[in-house]
């Protein structure tokens, strides 16, 4: 084709379609209706798709009546009001009822034709057959629903698995109060924090709280191994250092040549002592415990020098003994709390926790846990890792100030 010569004669003849032919045999349906929906003009393509005769339709049928009943409700509650308000609506997927009960998935686009004064006269609608498009969209919808179901299932699984790694309720320890809390950072993944409180022979109770490296199903496997090893070892020999040494051997062996399996943990035992209790604690690389005294003071109990459990064949653990009197409490926690982000380059710290919770006197285990839950709520999205809490306290004597 030359630049200035326009269209060649042969092609020009082909293009001399009559406007009527272009309308009637267009590759889409055309229909014009009065404002009340009565069909006043319809092209041959749409009549053919619907299997209808022109005389049976024009002036007799209302276009919305050709929709499925449910589609008609959609038309009246969404399409028609929008058409009134905007003057046009495009790309709405509905189904037309064709002859012999078949259904034709279509995409409808309508525009209102107005007179010179802007008064609405007619509604013009184009109808595109959309069977393949709709099938594709339905497959997408089904895939999305499937994905949502799978996600629900994964979350349910994570929740149930998490629950099996934690005691469902804490046992009653005579003469003491205990409280615990687990804050999952994600609903999709099992966390790697754990705690437990359990009876040992005599009037002694064992407890532990710790944090496994990583999260998800691998962490859950390790957590399960740790929990049963610690409980078994404590029954065999309740001394916290030998309990940790036992755990270290088990984890180190389990790690060989495979996914590394180690954790930080504080484990200990508690036995009654006069009007209070004595706690023996052993630490393996874990954040310091927080001790609350009845006089309102609080301090961090560092177990410095304790090494990560499971990383080395022979690990060193550090032990400490403290006495809790009436109105005293101790809190064990994981670093989800003390490594929470408080700004672009700032993190919550153990000292922040001590200062924020200072003055809880006399402290009770449930009171301490509730106070930390409030701290977690304030930190909000800054808490990026799971957080486990376990608190023990000796109730204040009657007559102490509340």
């Amino acid at each position: 084709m030359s630049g200035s010569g326009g269209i060649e004669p042969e092609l020009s003849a082909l293009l001399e379609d009559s406007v009527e032919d272009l309308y009637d045999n267009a590759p889409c349906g055309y229909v014009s209706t009065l404002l009340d929906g009565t069909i006043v003009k319809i092209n041959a393509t749409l009549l053919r798709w619907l299997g209808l005769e022109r005389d049976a339709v024009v002036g007799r049928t209302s276009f919305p009546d050709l929709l499925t009943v449910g589609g008609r409700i959609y038309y009246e509650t969404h399409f028609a009001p929008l058409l009134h308000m905007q003057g046009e609506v495009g790309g709405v997927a509905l189904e037309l009822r064709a002859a012999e009960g078949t259904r034709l998935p279509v995409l409808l686009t309508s525009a209102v034709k107005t007179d010179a004064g802007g008064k609405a006269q007619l509604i013009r609608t184009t109808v595109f057959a959309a069977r393949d498009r709709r099938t594709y969209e339905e497959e997408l919808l089904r895939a999305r629903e499937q994905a949502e179901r799978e996600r629900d299932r994964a979350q349910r699984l994570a929740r149930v698995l998490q629950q099996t790694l934690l005691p469902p309720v804490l046992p009653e320890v005579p003469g003491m109060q205990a409280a615990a809390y687990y804050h999952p950072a994600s609903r999709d993944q099992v966390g790697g924090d754990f705690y437990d409180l359990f009876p040992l022979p005599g009037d002694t109770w064992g407890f532990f709280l710790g944090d496994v490296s990583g999260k998800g199903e691998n962490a859950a496997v390790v957590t399960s191994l740790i929990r049963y090893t610690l409980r078994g070892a404590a029954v065999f020999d309740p001394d916290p250092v030998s309990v940790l040494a036992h755990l270290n051997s088990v984890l180190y062996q389990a790690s060989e040549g495979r996914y590394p399996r180690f954790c930080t943990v504080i484990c200990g035992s508690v036995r009654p002592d006069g009007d209070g209790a004595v706690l023996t604690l052993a630490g393996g690389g874990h954040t310091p415990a927080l001790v609350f005294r009845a006089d309102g003071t609080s301090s961090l109990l560092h177990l410095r020098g304790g090494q990560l459990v499971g990383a080395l064949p022979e690990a060193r653990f550090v032990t400490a003994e403290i006495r809790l009197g009436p109105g005293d409490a101790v809190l064990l926690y994981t670093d989800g709390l003390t490594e929470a982000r408080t700004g672009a380059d700032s993190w919550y710290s153990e000292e922040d926790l001590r200062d924020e919770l200072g003055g809880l006197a006399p402290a009770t285990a449930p009171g301490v846990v509730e106070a930390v839950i409030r701290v977690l709520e304030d930190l909000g999205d800054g808490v990026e890792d799971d957080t486990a809490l376990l608190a023990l306290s000796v109730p204040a004597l009657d007559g102490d100030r509340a």
Partner: protein
Amino acid sequence: MDVVSRNNVVVTGNEAGPVVLLAHGFGCDQNLWRLVVPLLAETYRVVLFDHVGAGLSDVAAWTAERYSSLDAYADDVLTICRELDLRDVVLVGHSVSAMIAVLAANREPERFAKLVLLTPSPRYVDDGDYRGGFSRADIDELLDALEANYLGWSAVMAPVIMDNPGRPELGQELTNSFCRTDPEIARVFARVTFLSDNRSDLAKVTVPTLVVQCARDAIAPREVGQFVHDQVRGSELVTLDAVGHCPQLSAPEATAAAIAEFAGGR
């Protein structure tokens, strides 16, 4: 959050006039009243709002549990009346909001001077001798249509729409916005709208009531309008020479005249 932002309450018209509270129905938002408001504004104090989940209401206030019954919507209407201290209210409910209006008026009749039920239906699904006009399968088809058309809604656009009400430069993107809804909200609202049965609530209405229906309405046919009129003691029935389910758009003058004539005050 206060109810004015939660329900996007808009007060307009004659400050000293009697209160006309306009409640939109299933599908769109308070914009549906746009042609009627100017006709009422001179005489009445016109109060508009969006149901929670529709229009520019606070979507965060919506939960499937709460909004799975029309009582929650009636509760919101009463809260709006209380918070704005609206009295002797002429409550106009369109479509499903006609039944929401009935529930609200039955709970606190002293709050309302009059009820106008615009194209009401107390039950859409046929039941024995009762003809609501639809079968359960039809309602499932509607849910399919909702699923296939997220008019003006997408998860990507939603925050833009919510954060920028009334910004004209977003006009192009806000096409279809009057009828946009989060697909999950639309599904729950469709179910509560089309599967509720409020027939027994009609006989309990003590507030003077006007039933307004259209001559041809596929959603609320005339026999249903007649049923509502028969069940609400002492009610009046007006049939507009209009087609469709939204006479406030297709016949705004006649709709406003029917409301005003019944409401009095001019």
